[in-house]
């Protein structure tokens, strides 16, 4: 597939890195140095120039491209370049649009302007954070098969009932159908088998139906009801903060935003209702004490500086806050914070990349590829992919224990109609099943490829 990416910044670069293995990628950016470094690092073609100039777009081959992704730092440029690309016969266009002022007209832009997908990283990050706050034990939750399957990331704490439990005993012990599909222990990512024993400090990724997931959380923390997040403090009132406050209000959580810029505070208080907006420096200990930040159930650090966010979260954690969420933009800092024992880290960049990747994989459907959803887990070292069995192939109808899977692959769940199956050896695939596969390898485009 020919893909053009406009804007070679953090998101553009990450997209190029992933997509260049399977697709023909061209990146356009005004900044010559960026183009130089990105073409050096990845197998792509780079064009230096303005992405609104038709000459540059033509050089990139817009007319023949399947997918046009605009991720420059300006919303207007993104929208406009998508429009121009559309006029020059690009098949599908994706624009990153961040300004909440455009929120109301997303449908208009999709239907009238023909932009296939609008990505709003701030809104998506807010969504992600809200999801994490809903299940306080979880670090991260994703959903598959139109919400029928949940994939949760959980850290096993000291004294948890999961500690020192072999996986084969898990279902019997909890009387629930859940499947642990990956365990992150230290630096290693393991796809475990039945004899694997969980330890405190492990991070596990598990799939279950939505109902079972809720029950699972109830049973691992008997005090689940009481532990529900009832109040949250957001430090930093940027766009993510705005979206998050809105969503938390809908979950009837008490929200307090601490923002340093008086103008922005005024704006927030005008736009948001039932949210306390405090004007002050969220990194100042006096302000933190005065506003009783550490009494809240959850603290979310959303300032524009990664380092500040990490420090704020560490402080909150040390002061006994149940749930701490940190926004980190730079990937390399994310790896560092793993060692700092901060569990919920949200990166708007990787969320955007994930979303666009899902779209790209889904678009391959027409080219004989049947990926429906894709998530990248554990700092992109693992992928969870949902396939749809579209037609009768030789692996259909054969019990799973007779099929030979490649190494590093696990079939996490099968969705048949409304029913969720946590697969055992006797289960088999049928046409129209959705299959969720977890793998440490990359680049699977078809279900066939997972079998030996």
């Amino acid at each position, binding site marked *: 597939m020919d893909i053009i990416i406009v804007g070679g910044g953090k998101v553009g670069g990450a997209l190029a890195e992933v997509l260049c293995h399977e697709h023909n990628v061209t990146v356009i950016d005004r900044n010559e140095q960026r183009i130089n470094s990105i073409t050096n*690092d990845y197998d792509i073609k780079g064009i230096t120039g303005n992405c609104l100039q038709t000459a540059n777009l033509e050089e990139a081959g817009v007319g023949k491209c399947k997918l046009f992704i605009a991720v420059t730092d300006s919303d207007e440029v993104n929208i406009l370049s998508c429009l121009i690309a559309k006029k020059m016969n690009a098949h599908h266009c994706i624009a990153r649009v961040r300004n909440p002022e455009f929120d109301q007209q997303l449908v208009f832009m999709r239907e009238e302007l023909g932009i296939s997908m609008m990505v709003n990283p701030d809104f998506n990050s807010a969504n992600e954070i809200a999801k994490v706050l809903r299940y306080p034990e979880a670090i991260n939750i994703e959903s598959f098969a139109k919400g029928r399957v949940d994939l949760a990331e959980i850290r096993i704490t000291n004294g948890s009932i999961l500690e020192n439990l072999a996986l084969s005993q898990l279902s019997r012990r909890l009387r629930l159908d859940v499947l642990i599909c990956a365990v992150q222990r230290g630096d290693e990512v393991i796809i475990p088998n039945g004899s694997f024993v969980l330890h405190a400090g492990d991070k596990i990724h598990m799939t279950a139906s939505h109902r079972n997931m809720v029950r699972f959380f109830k049973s691992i923390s008997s005090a689940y009801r009481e532990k529900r997040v009832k109040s949250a403090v957001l430090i930093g009132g940027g766009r993510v903060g705005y979206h998050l406050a809105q969503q938390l209000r809908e979950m009837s959580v008490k929200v307090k935003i601490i923002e340093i810029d008086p103008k922005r505070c005024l704006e927030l208080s005008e736009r948001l209702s039932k949210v306390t907006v405090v004007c002050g420096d969220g990194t100042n200990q006096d302000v933190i004490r005065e506003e009783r930040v550490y009494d809240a159930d959850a603290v979310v650090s959303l300032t524009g500086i990664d380092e500040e966010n990490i420090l704020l979260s560490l402080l909150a954690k040390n002061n006994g806050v149940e749930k701490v969420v940190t926004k980190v933009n730079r990937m390399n800092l994310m790896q560092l914070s793993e060692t700092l024992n901060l569990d919920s880290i949200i990166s708007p960049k990787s969320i955007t990349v994930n979303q666009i990747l899902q779209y790209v994989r889904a678009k391959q459907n027409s080219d004989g590829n049947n990926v429906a959803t894709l998530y990248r887990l554990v700092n992109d070292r693992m992928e969870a992919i949902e396939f749809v069995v579209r037609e009768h192939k030789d692996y259909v109808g054969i019990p799973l224990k007779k099929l030979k899977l490649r190494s590093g692959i696990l079939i996490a769940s099968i969705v048949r109609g409304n029913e969720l199956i946590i697969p055992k050896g006797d289960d088999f695939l049928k046409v129209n099943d959705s299959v969720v596969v977890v793998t440490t390898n990359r680049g699977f485009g078809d279900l066939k490829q997972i079998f030996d």
Partner: protein
Amino acid sequence: MNYRIIVYIMGQILRIVGVCMLLPIFVGIYYGEHHVIASFGIPSAITIIISLLFTLKKPKNTAVFSMEGFVSVAASWIAMSAIGAMPFVISGEINGYINALFETVSGFTTTGSTVLADVEKMSRSCMFWRAFTHWLGGMGVLMFVLAMMSSNDMRTMHMMRAECPGPNVGRLVSKSTFSARILYGIYIVLTVSEIIILALLKIPLYDSVILSFSSAGTGGFSMWNDSVGHYNSMAVEIVTAVFVIIFGVNFNLYYFLIIRKFSAVFKNEELRTYLCVIAGATAVITIANTGIYNSFGESLWKSFYMVASTITSTGFANTDTSQWSQFSQTILLMIMFVGSCAGSTGGGMKVSRIIIIVKTGIRELKYIVSPRVVASIKLDGKPVEKDVIRGASNYFILFMIIYAISIILISHDSCSIEESISAVTTCMNNIGFGVGQFSTSGNFSGLDSFSKILLCFDMLIGRLEIYPLIMLFASKKTH
């Protein structure tokens, strides 16, 4: 530095060389030269075994930064020259390893200088290998490796930059593998068409293959002592002249022709300048040569042929240039520096670099006239990136420093001043002939071993454009 990946890349390149060495065996068997089976088979087997050992395990860390890219390419070129020289020694057709090495380096770098006084004595299989080194070295072995890869997860840009000539190397299409395939595709099609045209002119097939390999790599090895002049055929001269000029043009332009972007070709400033320099130099030399030849037509043709052969860094000859006036010979020496277009198989400093350097000079003059002027340097109507300008100027400076050092070092040998200068000029620009004892009728056998090794380095420096070789030896200090 990531030594594992360097070894891995070297293994990939050596495997290609090893396999290519099997070709002369078939040629040898066909012409009944059975002794060559050993002389090519042994080095080929050794090379393939080494390459298999090198590529046995793919390194986990595939990070290739510019240092790794440059070092691996330079090391590979030296290794393949060392191995490529072995058949000549084993078969006993070239006396002494140093001589054979000089001949092979001269082949791979498409220089075309020879140490053989009588080329015609060489066996057909060795002759084939000698011409084939031109062909392989012309477009580059690493490019061949890239073209063969199904996909790659290495940062290939740094390696391409190390091997492709020119100030600004980029991909034609978004994948390095496809870019390399396109370039090799064009290369093969052009070479084959030259073979066919020559064969149609009633030249024996073997001769036309050798001639085509030589002109495709813009090398200059010939199977006759009097080079192309041996055939005494105007048609052969026309075909080779036209083809060396074609091979001296940036291959990207042929791709533009294929995808019907004609305007990009016609507006190409480098191509125009290249053709203008050829025309200008031909005109001046023709006038200066009128007294030497019988007719104006002959003078024009001989001058044009030699200019085309020189500027593309081929080194074919249809006349003895040592009989020309000092003036004409000096012009030939000067256009050696200009060389062919970036991204071609030719050598020299490259026309686009010369254009950029001249324009920088003109801009400097503008600054003197009005110090506040803001002037940008443009190529093809587009401003040239700052790094490219800096790169071109610095390349020129480094080139000249190495040039001067080489002349000083070689002058210990008993040559005249102009002979030493011409020897270094011809080697660093990958041309093939100089003046005096190195002229088209002479050869390089008169030099001692030290000079030959020095010239080998000069040829590699010219072909790989300085930096890779310097990196290879400087890498230890900068770790």
